[in-house]
């Protein structure tokens, strides 16, 4: 049984379709990146998984059951939804206190999570004076309060400086390594590409792909950049293979669909000297944008 599961989930607000027949599942022990451009339906999906909104149809399940049936919610799921959801006049420590008391969590745990998110020094200040990064840390502290089995984090990297990002990555990795389920959303792939094991990509409320990061990386259209002594002959030779060839500015061929070894062997047989044969891996970000863009065109 997956820890988090969305089954044919749809959510409509009047005529606007926020989530459209979405299905995916999230497993324990790994970090799952939940990707999509702004307005793709990430937050809506997460809120449905937390029982904060009612699906129009379909269901969102936590450990196989609807979230409202959770018996010990803060020890099951910890969530950081948005960095602005605090009373500006309440101190960070008191915010955590109200939650800890409600869930019967010992208040000593507050100091632990404040330590974890490195917010101890500012804990007694009112949230009003916090930077966005500090609010993100406080939201994370709230999520970690109950030592939950599942973490749902909505754009936790927003407002973090590079050090903060690194700290967040380590934290998420640790949590996943400890056997927890981590679902973390972002609209920028690079934020999660160093952390996530699994990717769920949505756009317009629909699932585009669910894949492991390794698969996604490998599947990227690898291209070969070729320069040679006799380009026309090489093009003709490649024409007899599966290769797709484009000529880039006359001097360079961009070839995909065949391995580098095959091109080398082919050139040797025809007596063509290879001047350059380089693998050009399309960046993940480009591929991500392309994937998101394709759907838009369709």
């Amino acid at each position, binding site marked *: 049984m997956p820890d988090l599961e969305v089954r044919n989930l749809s959510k409509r607000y009047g005529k606007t379709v926020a989530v459209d027949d979405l299905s995916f599942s999230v497993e324990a022990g790994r970090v799952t990146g939940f990707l999509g451009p702004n307005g793709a339906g990430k937050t809506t999906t997460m*809120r449905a998984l*937390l*029982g*904060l*909104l*009612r699906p129009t149809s379909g269901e969102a399940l936590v450990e196989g059951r609807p*979230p*409202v*049936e*959770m018996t010990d*919610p*803060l020890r099951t*799921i910890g*969530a950081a*939804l*948005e960095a*602005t*959801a*605090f*009373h*500006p*006049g*309440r*101190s960070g420590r*008191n*915010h955590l*206190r*109200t*939650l800890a*008391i*409600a*869930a*019967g969590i010992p208040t000593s745990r507050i100091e632990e999570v404040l330590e974890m998110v490195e917010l101890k020094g500012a804990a007694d200040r009112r949230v009003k004076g916090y930077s966005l990064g500090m609010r993100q840390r406080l939201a994370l502290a*709230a999520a970690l309060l109950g030592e939950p089995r599942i973490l749902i984090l909505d754009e936790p990297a927003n407002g973090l400086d590079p050090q903060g990002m690194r700290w967040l990555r380590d934290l998420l990795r640790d949590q996943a390594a400890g056997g927890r389920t981590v679902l973390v959303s972002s609209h920028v792939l690079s934020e999660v590409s160093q952390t996530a094991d699994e990717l769920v990509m949505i756009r317009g409320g629909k699932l585009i792909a669910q894949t492991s990061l390794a698969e996604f990386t490998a599947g990227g259209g690898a291209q070969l950049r070729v320069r040679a002594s006799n380009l026309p002959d090489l093009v003709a030779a490649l024409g007899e293979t599966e290769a797709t060839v484009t000529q880039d500015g006359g001097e360079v061929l961009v070839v995909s669909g065949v391995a580098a070894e095959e091109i080398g062997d082919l050139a040797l047989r025809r007596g063509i000297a290879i001047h350059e044969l380089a693998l050009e891996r399309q960046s993940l970000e480009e591929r991500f944008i392309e994937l998101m863009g394709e759907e838009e065109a369709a």
Partner: protein
Amino acid sequence: MNLLRSEWSKLWTTRTTWVMLGIALLGEALFAGLYVGLTSLEEIEGPVGEPEGLETVATGVGLLLVMMLVLGVLIATTEFRHGTASSTFLATPKRWPALLAKLGIALLVGVVAGLAYVIVNGGLAVALFAERGGDMPATGDLIEVYAGVVVSYAVICAFGLGVGEVVRNQVGAIIAAIAFFFVLSPLPELLPGSIGDYFPAQAIGSLHGNPEGDGSLGQVSGGLVLAAWATTLVALGTFLVCRRDVAE
């Protein structure tokens, strides 16, 4: 019990509550001091020499009444305004237990405010009145009046909570609660018959033991009528909050 403690801590960890209660109590103290200190004894005691006047002073409760109504609204709406409703309902996914705890807190804070009122305003008024050699009302009468005040604060705070849960928008809910309580609900008094007695404004008059006009309900019935209004609103509010999406 945990939820009650959590809501209690929410209430007192922001300045709003302290400021509102402080201002209201200061205002009430000023009112009692000025009124009892400056008005002639005959006027306070009333024409027949019966000390009804002091009871009127003791129930000069308008400021705190408004504050308790607004505080009730705030207990409900602050969480929606600042988005903390999400955290609250993550800890209590069924939602209604948290709302029940809020009701408990609204009633409790009403009682606390009522007791503070009795000490500050009541104490001051009675002390001043006695100091000036006024004819004291019977202790039993005073206790009845004060009990009515304490109950009315608790119930009106719950009333505000109900309005806040139904409306959710903070400013809208405050306006709605005040407009309904102080502007709309006194209107049926103008109608013939006793229908006006069953609206909050008159009911609270009865509860305070100083009914205006004829055919008013007794103190207890007035209190029950008011409680019925508050219960209806809180029930409706709870139903709606449990059903509706928590958008922010």
